[in-house]
């Protein structure tokens, strides 16, 4: 089944002569269980594309459909619930909550999403283990290394068992070994739990764990490397 359908999406930031065309007539389709690598230079529109798919940013034109729901038809409230329950977003800047510990940064989803708190807690403990963070679970983000923070952010994205996983530069702060391990974990999650995933990366070595690669240049998608 089609998990993500991006149809002719254009995104223009700003107006007049300061306007930036970050996406140009971008179209993309992703099936369930599919893991896609998004490659492109800085400023090419990768984050913008993920934001549009994740319901954070409304496209200037074009349609985005997730499963059988069109994002454009959703109210602000529905978009918020959509992000809470169906999207796992790993942001480029991690965006952990500084006054919550590693574990709490994941379990906070118990108050935000509709999933039962006990389920979230059990899953958080399992993910902490898989991400090698069990020893650090009671540390605040400021006490964690860049790589540890990144893994917490990945844990937070996976803890609600979302349909979509959108990961912006997951391996930037990780060395090759840890990076490989984390991308493998993402791939396993996507394959075994019927999700669709998009991973932005610069690291060509990570591409082998994905099903397909799409390149983006100046807001235009160029299929298959």
């Amino acid at each position, binding site marked *: 089944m089609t998990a993500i359908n991006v149809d002719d999406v254009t995104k223009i930031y700003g107006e007049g002569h300061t306007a930036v065309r970050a996406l140009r007539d971008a179209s993309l389709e992703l099936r369930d269980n599919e893991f896609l690598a998004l490659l492109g230079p800085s400023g090419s529109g990768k*984050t913008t594309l*993920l*934001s549009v798919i*994740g319901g*954070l*940013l409304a496209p200037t034109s074009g349609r985005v459909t997730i499963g059988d729901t069109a994002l454009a038809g959703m109210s602000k*409230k529905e978009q*918020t*619930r*959509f*992000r*809470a*329950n169906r*999207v796992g*977003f790993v*942001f*480029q*800047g991690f*965006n*952990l*909550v*500084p*006054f*919550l510990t590693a574990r*709490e940064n994941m*379990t*906070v*989803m*118990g*108050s*935000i*999403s509709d999933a039962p708190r006990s389920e979230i807690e059990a899953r958080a403990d399992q993910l902490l283990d898989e991400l090698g963070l069990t020893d650090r679970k009671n540390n*605040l983000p400021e006490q964690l290394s860049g790589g540890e923070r990144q893994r917490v952010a990945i844990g*937070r994205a996976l803890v609600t068992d979302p349909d979509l996983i959108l990961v*912006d530069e997951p391996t930037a702060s990780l060395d090759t070994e840890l990076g490989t391990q984390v991308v493998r974990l993402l791939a396993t999650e996507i394959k075994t739990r019927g999700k669709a995933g998009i991973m932005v990366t610069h690291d060509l070595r990570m591409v082998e764990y994905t099903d397909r690669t799409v390149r983006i240049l100046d807001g235009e998608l160029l299929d298959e490397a």
Partner: protein
Amino acid sequence: MFIALRDLWRSKLRFGLLTGAVGLLVFLLLFLNTLSATLLDFFIGAIESNSADVLVYEETARRNLQASRLDASLIDDIAAVPGVVEAAPVGELTLTAQIGEDLTDLSLWGVDLDGPGRPAPIVEGRPPGPGEVVMDESGMAEGFKIGETITLVPSGTELDIVGFVRDRRYAVIATAYLDFAEWVAVFEAEFPGTPVVPLSLIAVDVDDGLDPAVVGDRITTAVAGVEGLDRTTAARGTPGVDSISQSFNLIVGITFGIVVLVVAFFFLILTVQKLRSFVALRAIGASVGYLARSLIIQVIALVTLGSLVGAGILRVATLGSNPAFPLSVDGRLVLTVTGAVLGSSILAGLLSVGRIARTDPADAAQGIR
């Protein structure tokens, strides 16, 4: 709850300091209120807590006891007004008295010891006999004690203190009560050659179940040249009471405003500092409502704790309470002040909620900028 409590816990010092500040300001609010009540009590307690239901003034005195002069013949006219059970004379004289070695001011009240306006209840000692007075217990501060003798100046009349009453001070000076006939004798001794000794007031008891204000109006209408007032109206109408109340209300109002502003600014500063977190939480699906609830929970926790601290400090302050300066924790006052501060602080917190609502969750997607 999840975010609110963890944030509170992890910023203990900050929130603790603010709780302390709110506590001190709430204490100030409570203390100012108590102070104003005490001061007013010292000023007009003799009127407000009088044992009579209605006090009758000379009409032209404009509710000023010390300007009011009535003829004794009016007592019978007033007693004849329907609803009046009994009417009795009241005389007030402010003079200098010697107690021990010291000279001090004394407000001396002559009343019918068994009639309306009697000094009752006696909280310590016994009712006065000939040559004796009972005093408002706050006089202790000026050295008036049971068993001591007051010497009036310049006449040299001696009066023994045999008992205390409560809340019956007048004009913020020591206040003593004695039999009306003796008061007349004191007056004549102090001002030799006075042809007539005027009454200050006529104290009236009304029939059970009748509204004193109504009977007061009847007296005003029925008897020429007088104004009958219930105790509260008489007390509030005393010249000077209004300006004292207004001054205190102004200070209390300003303090109240400061508490609310402190809370508002504090939360606004914290909100702006945590804006990145709020943006991130909104991006991962937290609604503005959820974040607003968290913030309001923090406001409630902080103001409630602060009010407890304030009431606690007031409680400690009451340990130093004495008749000269009575202080007490009035539970209703604490609740009213806490409720008012809480309500306004929650409204002030909405300022921060507005700031959160104006964030764009899409900002979370871009890296650290």
